[in-house]
């Protein structure tokens, strides 16, 4: 892999980090605005037109606040954990094809790297929560790990489905194999399982068990403040983008769309457009589920993942093996 200046610019600006951070802010705004709408209110209004820069204001306000580090906490992890935590979804997004059918960086086996990123995000979250040494954080980390151990298997199984269907283990390869027929048509169950597992990964209702504010205060984020909190919140939104992008890539054909044009610029625009639409669609799907449901208990969530979603994902995998064969 050669790091040319153009590639570096692409990684940092578009369609890399800056673009996805921008998407993270936009997604949070959309989420808040839409939640407000279905609840009969208006949502953010004063920060920018229609409150569109509300998440930005939140982020910068937090980053300019004093940071309190609890005395009992592990200072080293508290200091270096958040950048690592932030890096995980940011690194993963580089492997997602956006402006073309192949990603900025690709590798024959980058699906495995996605597995690693997904686990790493949760691991970092639990490490951060544990390092902050609050009692609520400790309870939350316990819940986080338990929840992780239950949604991980169905999630990974459902991610293997597109790989089996396409015979490739790289995201770009999976996207390329979806021209004309998106995998969601062959693997609707796999898609559904992935979305539900994504809800759990993102700690959104009904699986916001590790951050349930009415039970354990701020969950594993209770002890964070200032800059750390700002980055942790941003990372959560970036994970939201990451998981939406991943499901758009794995099941909805990524930047593929019905109309193709020749010409490099037009192709970039169209691909980006298709990709963004798909990403927003998945984000809305996750969002709609999250708004309409009550939180379940940890034992109920575990039961759901182990006894219903894992067998479903296995069946889907079997079907995919037969189809791909």
């Amino acid at each position, binding site marked *: 892999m050669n790091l040319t200046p153009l590639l570096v610019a692409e990684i940092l600006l578009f369609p890399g980090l800056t673009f996805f951070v921008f998407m993270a802010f936009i997604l949070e705004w959309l989420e808040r605005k839409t939640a407000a709408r279905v609840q009969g209110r*208006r949502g953010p209004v004063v*920060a920018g037109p229609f409150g569109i820069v509300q998440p930005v204001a*939140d982020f910068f306000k937090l980053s300019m606040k*004093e940071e*309190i580090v609890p005395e009992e906490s592990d200072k080293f992890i508290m200091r270096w954990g958040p950048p690592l935590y932030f890096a995980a979804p940011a690194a993963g997004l580089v492997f997602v094809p956006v402006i073309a059918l192949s990603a900025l960086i690709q590798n024959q086996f980058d699906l495995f790297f996605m597995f690693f990123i997904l686990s790493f995000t949760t691991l970092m979250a639990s490490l951060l929560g544990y390092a902050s040494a609050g009692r609520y954080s400790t309870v939350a980390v316990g819940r986080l790990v338990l929840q992780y151990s239950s949604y991980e298997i169905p999630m990974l199984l459902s991610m293997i489905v597109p790989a089996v269907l396409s015979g490739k283990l790289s995201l770009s390869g999976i996207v390329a194999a979806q021209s004309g027929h998106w995998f969601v048509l062959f693997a609707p169950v796999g898609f559904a399982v992935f979305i539900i597992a994504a809800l759990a990964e993102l700690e959104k209702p009904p699986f916001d068990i590790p951050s349930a504010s009415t039970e354990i205060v701020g969950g594993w984020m*209770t002890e964070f403040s200032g800059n750390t909190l700002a980055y942790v919140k941003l990372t959560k939104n970036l994970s939201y983008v990451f998981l939406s992008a991943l499901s758009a890539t794995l099941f909805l054909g990524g930047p593929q769309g019905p109309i193709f044009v020749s010409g490099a610029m037009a192709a970039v625009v169209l691909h980006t457009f298709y990709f963004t639409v798909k990403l927003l669609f998945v984000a809305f799907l996750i969002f709609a589920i999250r708004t309409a449901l009550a939180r379940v208990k940890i034992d109920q969530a575990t039961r759901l993942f182990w006894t219903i979603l894992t067998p479903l994902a296995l069946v889907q995998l079997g079907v995919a093996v037969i189809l791909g064969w």
Partner: protein
Amino acid sequence: MSQAADSFSGRFRRWARKRSIWVFHVNAASCNGCDIEILAALTPRYDAERFGVELVPSPRHADVLLVTGTVNAQMKDRLRDVYEQIPEPKHVVAIGACALGGGVMKGCYNVGHGIDKVIPVDLYIPGCPPRPEALLFGIIKLVTGEPPDRREE
């Protein structure tokens, strides 16, 4: 830092603070009247989220501490603890007649007359209880009326 950059960052900082107000609420021996009005201010009719107001679960995340109720002996230390846990810059809003001066509870043996004897208060919102609109008015006054920024002092 140059003068221009400083004024830009200062302006930006004020802009961000004005538009993102995360509140934490402590009921220091109140009758719930003010508390349900605070909640009501967040619900669709009044929707404080329009102004970037968000109710956060932990004082570590908060910018503004809303205190209702006449603080009693049992809550006094709790209130001070919570206040100290809030990162600077922070503001305290006292809500309701009890929090301002004891209100109708003045004769009771277990109440303090006003929370400003326990923690410094930046804004007072009187009323028993104040309407949600009065709370919105107060919050906006707090952020736009440039209350003392204790960190810079």
